[in-house]
Structures are given as structure tokens and as C-alpha cells.
């Protein structure tokens, strides 16, 4: 396989954001995934979210593990540094990168095999530590890249393409993230960009550990009857709890909503989350309630989507560690090396 450079043709009237960039400036190499793969829609949503938020692409670091999903960072944000790391270990690499420079935006992209099977430990601990990141799992219930084995998120009783019934209980990463300390937890569907793009935007502006479980059908290995991660199944069982609009502090747009139907959350950086109620009465600031809701609805076979939980008062890892404002990777010799005088004084205490 060789690399395909994407032709950089800017049509003159393509919409530009506040930085003067077009959507094309947020794209990457041409995807080599199967046509129709849910992962490509997620890449497109990431592009849209970054464009909408006027993010400078080089201020984003995108990290992934191994899998079809983990290849996708090559297919968006071509002007961002990316790191296709080791199977199941993206969270630690991202954590280290975030320690080195607190001023970049960290986008972790992973698969259900990558995060729920081999990488469950690192997934859990990155959430616990409060790493400031947007962590997206492109969840198809199978290992796409190794040709369709069940992953740890496959539902009990769901059927593989070869007809095997999965007998193991599924891991629900959103529930885990809630339990382990993520302060922004959402679930969405790759086929619903209207829901997904604002959820990514809210996560990118969150300023703490943000997790999005995106059901992303694998058209090649898990889109058949009997799969609970197929396009049809997800559409039929999708039970959204809310709809999100992300409003940047500078924007003065005041949308009008029917009274009682809107919840407003102001995040650390001043961005505002407008949550419109859909059907049920759902309180996204109630962590225990969110966990209960997920369990109850999952038991009924529903796939709960939307912004499940947000806590805008959370603190991130750098706050816990009390690190200096200036990124550690930019501290010069004089800030780091105590010098010979201090060493001589130390020598004297060791005699």
C-alpha cells in the first residue's frame, strides 16, 4: 500500500472559520478503511468539530493504539502530530505526552478491542488520573483489523458473521468511565453526526478527562442480522437522553428554547453546553443517576446516547501534580539544572 496524497484544491468559496481555515485544512490522508466503515464518519465529525471550534490543527496531538480505528488519526488533522502507538497502550502514551506539554489538546482515538480488551487497564487508569484529553472509542464490537473476532464490548448473545454466539458479558466503557472519574462522558453513533459533532466539541473544550463511546459499525465483519452493533440495530435501539449545542464564549447567539427544556452548563474555559431535553427527564450532573439510567436501559436492550454526565468543576492531572504553567518540555537548562554550587553543597553533606 502506498500513501495517497490528497489533492489540496481549495474552492474559493469554501466556508472559512475564524482562523481563515477551510474544512479541508483539518483533513488528513485518504482513508484506506472499507467503504462504509463507521470509523470514517467519526473522522469526518472530528474534522467538523475542530473546524467549528477554530482549533489550530498544530495545537492538537492525536494518539491512538492499534486497530482500524487507531489508524484513523492519519485520516484527519494532517497538520497535527500523530502517534499510532502500541495495541492497548495509547492511554499511557497520551498521559506522558500531556505531562510534557499541558498546552496542547490531546485527542486519543481507540477501538473497543484496543480499550476494552487488551487495554482495559490503561483505559481505567487514565480516567482515574484525570488526564486532560478527549478519548474516543470507535466501538464496533469486533476486532476489525484482525478480521472479526469478538471484542470485550460485544453483547452477550450477539452473533458473529460466522454464526458464533458470544457467551461472555460485555464491558460497557461509558459506565466504567463514569465510575472511574471521567468528568465528561457521552455515547453516540457514527451514523448520527448531528449528535456526535457537538459531543466532540464539548469534549475538546472540557478541560479534563472526557470520554465518548461511539458505536461505529464494522461493515465488513459486524453489520449482519444478529449483531447488536450493526447500523440497523443501533438506529432501532438508540435512546438519546438529550441533544447538545456547544456555544463558544465569544458567540452571542441566544437560541430560544421552550421553557423547562434546557439545561445550561458553563465549562472551565467559558464554553457553554446547552442540553436540550429529549423525552425522559435526565440529569447529566448526577453521576449515580447516570449509572443507574445506563444499567436500567441497557437491561431493556436500549442504547443510551447523548451527554451522559458532565462535571465542569473537575480538576485535571496537572492541577493534582501542581506543575508549573509553562509546559515542562519548554523549560530551559537554567530552570532544570541546579548547577555546580548546589552540588558542592550536597557533597559536603555526604561526608
Amino acid at each position: 500500500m502506498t500513501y495517497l496524497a490528497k489533492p489540496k484544491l481549495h474552492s474559493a468559496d469554501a466556508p472559512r472559520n475564524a482562523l481563515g481555515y477551510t474544512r479541508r485544512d483539518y483533513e488528513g490522508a485518504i482513508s484506506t478503511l472499507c467503504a462504509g466503515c463507521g470509523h470514517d464518519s467519526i473522522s469526518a465529525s472530528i474534522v467538523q468539530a475542530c473546524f467549528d471550534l477554530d482549533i489550530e490543527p498544530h495545537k492538537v496531538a492525536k494518539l491512538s493504539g492499534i486497530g482500524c480505528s487507531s489508524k484513523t488519526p492519519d485520516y484527519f488533522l494532517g497538520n497535527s502530530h500523530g502517534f499510532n502507538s502500541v495495541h492497548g497502550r495509547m492511554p499511557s502514551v497520551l498521559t506522558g505526552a500531556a505531562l510534557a506539554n499541558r498546552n496542547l489538546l490531546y485527542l486519543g482515538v481507540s477501538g473497543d478491542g484496543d480499550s476494552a480488551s487488551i487495554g482495559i487497564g490503561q483505559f481505567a487508569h487514565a480516567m482515574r488520573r484525570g488526564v486532560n484529553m478527549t478519548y474516543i472509542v470507535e466501538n464496533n464490537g469486533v476486532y476489525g483489523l484482525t478480521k472479526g473476532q469478538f471484542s470485550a464490548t460485544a453483547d452477550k448473545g450477539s452473533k458473529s458473521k460466522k454464526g458464533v454466539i458470544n457467551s461472555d458479558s460485555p464491558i460497557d466503557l461509558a459506565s466504567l468511565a463514569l465510575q472511574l472519574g471521567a468528568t465528561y462522558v457521552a455515547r453516540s453513533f457514527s451514523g448520527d453526526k448531528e449528535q456526535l459533532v457537538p459531543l466532540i466539541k464539548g469534549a475538546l473544550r472540557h478541560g479534563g478527562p472526557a470520554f465518548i463511546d461511539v458505536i461505529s459499525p464494522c461493515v465488513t465483519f459486524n453489520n449482519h442480522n444478529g449483531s447488536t452493533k450493526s447500523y440497523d440495530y443501533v438506529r432501532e435501539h438508540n435512546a438519546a437522553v438529550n441533544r447538545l449545542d456547544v456555544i463558544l464564549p465569544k458567540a452571542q447567539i441566544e437560541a430560544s428554547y421552550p421553557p423547562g427544556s434546557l439545561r445550561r452548563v458553563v465549562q472551565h474555559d467559558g464554553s457553554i453546553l446547552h442540553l436540550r431535553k429529549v423525552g425522559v427527564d435526565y440529569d447529566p450532573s448526577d453521576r449515580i443517576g447516570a449509572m443507574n439510567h445506563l444499567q436500567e436501559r441497557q437491561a431493556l436492550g436500549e442504547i443510551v446516547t447523548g451527554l451522559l454526565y458532565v462535571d465542569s468543576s473537575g480538576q485535571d492531572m496537572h492541577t493534582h501534580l501542581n506543575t508549573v504553567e509553562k509546559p515542562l518540555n519548554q523549560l530551559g537548562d537554567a530552570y532544570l539544572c541546579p548547577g555546580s554550587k548546589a552540588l558542592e553543597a550536597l557533597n559536603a553533606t555526604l561526608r
Partner: protein
Amino acid sequence: MSTPAIQHCNDFVIKFANVNGSGSASANELFARAIIRMGVPVAPRNIFPSNIQGLPTWYEVRVSEAGWLGARGGCDMMVAMNPQTWDRDVAAIEPGGYLFYDSTKPLPPSKFREDITVLGIPLTAMCNEEYEDARQRQLFKNIMYVGALIALLDMEFAAAEQLIVDRYRGKDQLIKANVNALRLGYDYAKQHLPCPIGLRVKRADAVGERIMIDGNSACGLGAVYGGATVAGWYPITPSTSVIEAFSSYCRKFRTDPDNGRARYAIVQAEDELASIGMVIGAGWNGARAFTATSGPGISLMQEFFGLAYFAEIPAVIVDVQRGSPSTGMPTRTQQSDLLSCAYASHGDTRHVLLFPQDAHECFSLTAQAFDLAERLQTPVFVLSDLDIGMNEQLCAPFEWDDSRRYDRGKLMTYAELEAGKDFGRYLDVDGDGIPYRTIPGTHPTKGAYFTRGTTRNPYAKYSEVGTDYVYNMERLRRKFNTAKDLVPAPILTKAAQPTHVGVIYYGSTAHAMAEAGAKLAADGIHVDTLRVRGFPFSDEVMQFIAERDAVFVVEQNESAQLRSLLINEGEIDPKKLVRVLHYDGSPITARFIAGKIADALTDRKISPIGQPQRKVAS
């Protein structure tokens, strides 16, 4: 039977048998440091089990005015404070040696030996009389026996007293209480025991400027001086104290004076995979990062080492080697990770290794490792071990040249990118095999790349083309060759007389080797020695072997790992390299090395004396 009592001044071994967790460590250290304050070198060593409390521990102090700092073996005086190990402790004393014990409870004569001098003090009784509190009774009992030893060994009371004053400066109560306990032991011994005994310490001038510190603290300090800002780690004996030291030196030296904030980040990871993952993430992002671990951690990190090697990411790993696996001998020393570090991971990898011989080099080589890792864009391993890592030792004072600047390696800057300089992440532009890299965030539209293992071309674009792969591997080989001259050079010590026998060794074997060389020379056996300090081996190492008929390779593992590495890397005839292996978990001794070399020379009928037979290196 009367065996004459050993009579030695400034040259003996005294061992303390204690119960783990009884607070003896700081008293024993006080004893060792008091001798140093009298200008006499000592080499103290802990021998401890993998438990926190209740099991036996030993502290061995070799007193050697001649300056031999390796373990000697044997024991001239036993301070037997652990009833549990009494029998074997008494049996371990050399004939004519001394036994010091707590005589509060009478022991039957069968518990003693005829051929040693027995020195009893009712320590427990004295403490019970003096102190109310149980913990105080325990702690001051230790100080009391140090006081008694000062009298018995004819040491200077003032030296120990001054140490206490220095240690507890500002805490007058503590100073008073400790000096009082020291005095009680001293006075009792003076009044009731035949002071001084045959073992004595006499003021000398053989310590000089040297300092005493353990290698792990020195590694931690080296990481501070080397500019490390990120540490990811997972606790494991014997490496844990590297990070503890890094953390406390960081608090001291890296706290922003204006706002009290940290110019460093230390994260205790969930396991070693995560520790090294964090280090690699931070290194990729332009921070100097390291981890400290031991053999089991090295095993877990293997996949990441391979990724870092191929993705060319700087990382520093301090490996404090110990005996074998989790239920191996975690509190015993070995040099048994050499091969698993040198060729760590899958897919044609090889790594840069540094071999410190003592705490001084633990400091300097750890600091240097960060420069090498960034210059070479690769993981660099500092291979320490339990013996130098966890024991305090005399070593040359730490040095730092203030004009030294960190070598950040080939970093392409915003200005260069802006000026249109060609950037190929894996492109060899000047023949040394080292490509340029960019740090994330450098430039809005230039210099970003997607990091992956090897499926890419020199411009970091996806490629599975064979020629791209081969280009990359050949470049990595060139880079490894470049490393040969960047790692610290080996140190050659020529024998007093010409010889065609050589010895190669590394790391903590150094002290015992120096003494072994002197011992052999005294017996008319001359050997040239070469201490390797880095891998890849420089040409000097191979030349040393080529120029000699036989070369002993002395190391502390069972499978002769350094020998294998030399054979493999230098295409050396295995017959030429003779194994000298020590691997029972105790530190290697000069007696052992000299004995093995002398025996082998006799067996092989090799005469070490005479003109070296020049061989043309092929």
C-alpha cells in the same frame, strides 16, 4: 585450644546481625560514617530479605585503609543482635575473631566458641533501666552498642558525637538523647571489657574528598541534573529508591521559588507497561523522561522498547538489576539483565547501554543518558544493580560543569521549517544515521508527521515497500555505529609488567576487580584490565581482545551475558573469552576473581608473563 586473637588495624570486616525493622540501620550507618570521619575508608553493605519486619538482616562493614571497597568475604567480628540467627552468626566468625552480644540473658557455654573472643554487654537491661518507652528502648539499644564498639575498636568518640550533632542539627533534644546513649555504651565497655581489642581503627588520611551515598540516590540526582522533567514508574525492589530520591531532589531543587509549583511531574503508574508508555509519550513530546525498574519490569516493557527504537523516541531507563523473577531473589544482586536490555523487544532491535561502576557514575551516567537519548533519539539504559544501587558507598564527589548545556539533539525549529528546510522525519541528511525530528506544536503547517513503527518512508508517509524498510534498517545500523563513539569510553588499566592476558568487566564488579588485580600481581600474575562503560562496544574493546591471547570476562550472572554480547558483536572466537561467573546473589569478591583467574591460568597452562603475541585483527 588457643587460637590467637586476630590483630588488625584499619583492615577488617565487622558484621551486624539484626532483626529487620528494629531501627538498627541508622545506628549501623552512624558506626560506618564515624570510621570515615577518622579518615579510614569503609565499604558497608546491607544484606536484607524481601520483608519489611521481623526477618533477619545483616549489615557488613569492611574497614580498609588500603581502600578496597568490594566485598571481602568472611567476618572478623560479629555484632550478634538477632537470637534467631545466633548459631549461624557465631559459626560465621573467622577463627580468632570476636563476638559481641547482648548478655542480659545468660546463654549456655554450648552457644559460644572456644576460638573466639566473646564480648558481652547487658544492653537490654541497661536500656530497660534508662528508658520507659518501648520504642526508645529499642532504638537507643542500637546507639548503645555503637558506643561500646567505639570503645572496643579504639575509635574516636568525638567523631561519632559530631556526626550525631550534624545529623540532628537544630533538634537539641534528639542530639542529647543520642549522645547520652552512645556514652552509656562507651563507658560500660571501657569499665567492663578489655578495651581496645585486637581490631582497631586508627586515624588515617585515606578518605580525602570522597562522599558516601547509595547509587540509587545518585541516579535520582543524576536525573535532576540531566534535566528529566517526567518520570513514570512502578515500585519494584531494588529500583524504588531511584524515584524516591528523584522526587525528594526535585522538591528541593525544582520547586518554583515564586509560586511553589513543580517543574517536574512524577506519576506512579499502574504497571511497567504504563510507566514506559508515559516515558515514551513524554519523550515524543519533547520532555526528558525516564523510568526506573528492575528485571521483571524490563520484561514487561519489551514491546514499548521496540516501538521507541523504531519510532526513534528518546527515553531513559534505569535498570537496577537483581536476581531473577518476582519470586526469585529480589533483594540479592546480579548483572543478569544485560542481554534482555541489549536486544530488548522484537524485530532487529539493539539498544544503547551504560554501565556505572559506583554512585559517582550512577550520577554522571544517568545525567549523560538524557543527552545520549536525545542525540540518538532512542531508549538508553543505565544498568546499575542492587549492590551499587542500595548500598551506601565511598565514591568521588559529584561534579558538574556549569558551562555544559543539554544536548537536545537534532530538533528542527519553527524558523528552519518556515525558511523551507526539507524535513523528512526518517531521512539521513548527514550520514550519521540520525534524522531530524519536530516536537508537536512546532509549526502551523509544516513539520507535522504521523509516528508509527516501520511502515513508512523517510518522510514518515505510510509505506510497506521493501526498499523503504531496508533504507530504514540500514540507517538505524549507521545510527548504532554513531553511538559507539558517543557512549563513555572503556577504561584500560595496564599491568605492571607486559602480559598477554586481559580481563574485561563492568559495573559493580569494578571494586572487587581492582583488588583482584593487585592480589594477582602480588602473586606474580599480571593482567591488563578493561572496564567497559557502554554498549555498543567501541573499537577499543575489540582491539583489546584482538591484541591478547586470552581474555577473562568477569561478570555476575550464570550465562556469561557480557561474554555472549562480545562474541556476537565483535565476531570473537568464543575460545578466547574465558568465563569468570559469580551469581549466588552476593556481591562478587576479589578472592573469588583472583582464585578463578589463577586456577584457569594453571589449568590452561597459559603463562601471563611475557610479550603479548601481536595478532593482526582481521
